């Protein structure tokens, strides 16, 4: 039973931590410059991870789907399958998981290091609300950066798919794009991209929780980084199931 109590205790603490982000974000002072700083920090530094990953995934997906679709005489559908798969699911989910590693470990380690070196105490001693100053901007930055980075992932995936298909069939870019977007509705694109804001909230909140609340000194830095990635990734996958159900409920045509 001890593990159950610990698990419930953790869920309760994490939930309260996450709720506090929402209550504090609406309370002045608004940390605009900190949010911008964090977007630059976590966002721009993640682009070199997202773009090549998207390109490679796009190419691999086309290589796999091509043989099947050609067998059924549906080679013309390759761009549409590629675009639909990337915009609806692969782009958002893989971007979420990749960035859980990149951003989650970074936020967890930085905050844990700040805790271990008394920098957070230093902020508090200066009458500055450390939660609002350190945690809230990071979570908000993740919520803004994730959808933007997902777009990079989507279009890199499409480009990777095109390059792969071009090498096989010499398809022109115009035809590829036309076929790719033939079957895409706005609801296929907007809702799945925006759901990554929830992934960003999960990454920001979970990793900030582990970093901000650690009290295990230098050892806590490594633990916070690891726990941030593991728990964020798990919660992203679980949340994805729920969010897809929500999208299907709001946009029933997507469920077909």
């Amino acid at each position, binding site marked *: 039973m001890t593990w159950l109590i610990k698990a419930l205790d953790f869920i309760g603490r994490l939930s309260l931590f996450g709720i506090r982000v929402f209550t504090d974000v609406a309370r002045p002072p608004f940390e605009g410059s900190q949010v911008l700083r964090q977007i630059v920090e976590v966002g721009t530094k993640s682009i070199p991870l997202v773009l090549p990953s998207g390109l490679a995934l796009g190419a691999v997906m086309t290589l796999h789907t091509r043989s099947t679709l050609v067998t059924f005489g549906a080679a013309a559908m390759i761009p549409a399958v590629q675009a639909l798969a990337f915009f609806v699911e692969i782009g958002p989910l893989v971007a979420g998981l990749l960035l859980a590693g990149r951003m989650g470990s970074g936020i967890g380690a*930085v905050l844990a290091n700040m805790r271990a*070196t008394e920098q957070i105490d230093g902020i*508090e*001693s*200066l*009458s500055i609300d450390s939660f609002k100053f350190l945690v809230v901007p990071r979570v908000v930055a993740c919520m803004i950066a994730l959808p933007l980075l997902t777009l990079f992932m989507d279009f890199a995936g499409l480009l990777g798919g095109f390059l792969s298909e071009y090498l096989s069939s010499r398809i022109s870019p115009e035809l590829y794009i036309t076929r790719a977007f033939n079957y895409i509705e706005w609801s296929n694109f907007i809702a799945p991209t925006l759901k990554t804001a929830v992934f960003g909230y999960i990454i920001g909140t979970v990793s900030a929780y582990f970093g901000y609340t650690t009290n295990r000194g230098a050892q806590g830095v490594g633990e916070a980084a690891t726990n941030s990635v593991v728990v964020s990734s798990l919660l992203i996958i679980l949340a994805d199931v729920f969010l897809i159900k929500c999208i299907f409920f709001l946009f029933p045509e997507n469920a077909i």
Partner: protein
Amino acid sequence: MTDHTGPAVAFKHVYKAFGEKHVLSNVSFSVEPGEALCLLGRSGTGKSVTLKLIVSLLKPDSGEVWIEHDNVGILKEEQLSRARRKLGYLFQDAALFDSLTLYENLALPLTRLTSKSADEIDAAVDRVLSEVGLVADKNKMPAELSGGMRKRAGLARALVLEPKILLADEPSSGLDRITASEIDELLLRQKKERGTALIVVTHDVHGARRIADRIAVLDKGDLVACGPVADVERSENEVARRLIWE
């Protein structure tokens, strides 16, 4: 300096424990405005915890901690924030924000907590940095500073809001005798020129003898001696005598 009468800081029957480990037991003392109190004691006897209780980074299990007329243990967030503005805290390892330059470290509290203009903030930062001899280094990151420079930078940050009470946690630890003496000199200047109350946790008896109006000795969570240096030298408590003489 202050319209407040009575102690700048007062501990009243404070108990603090971490789990089974009792850190402070029924500790009471007070520090008057403009007075310097040095806290001595063996490692792990609750000296740093005492400072953290004053700044309310920790809460007492029982008893009261007062900053002027505020019992900090029961203050709400906004009131606590106001009370903390009377304090400056020099951390043991300076605790500078490693993602900000030295200038940004000092400007941060001024930007957040005062209505000073950018020019006024520049002037205030330069004034404090010149007091600690670091004006030329203001654009450096904390990682580029030596141990002594970091200590002085931490002191500058603690002083930038012109606090009435300065808490210093082992200001001379890890420093050579000359640099430690320079830090002591800076602390003394604050006391003499600004009337700042000082509470200094230290293992450096030489420095404590220079700075302190009174010395308090903690041992196993108890305050075993508290008074002027001469009184502590004649204390009946053996730990207090050994600490002050050795």
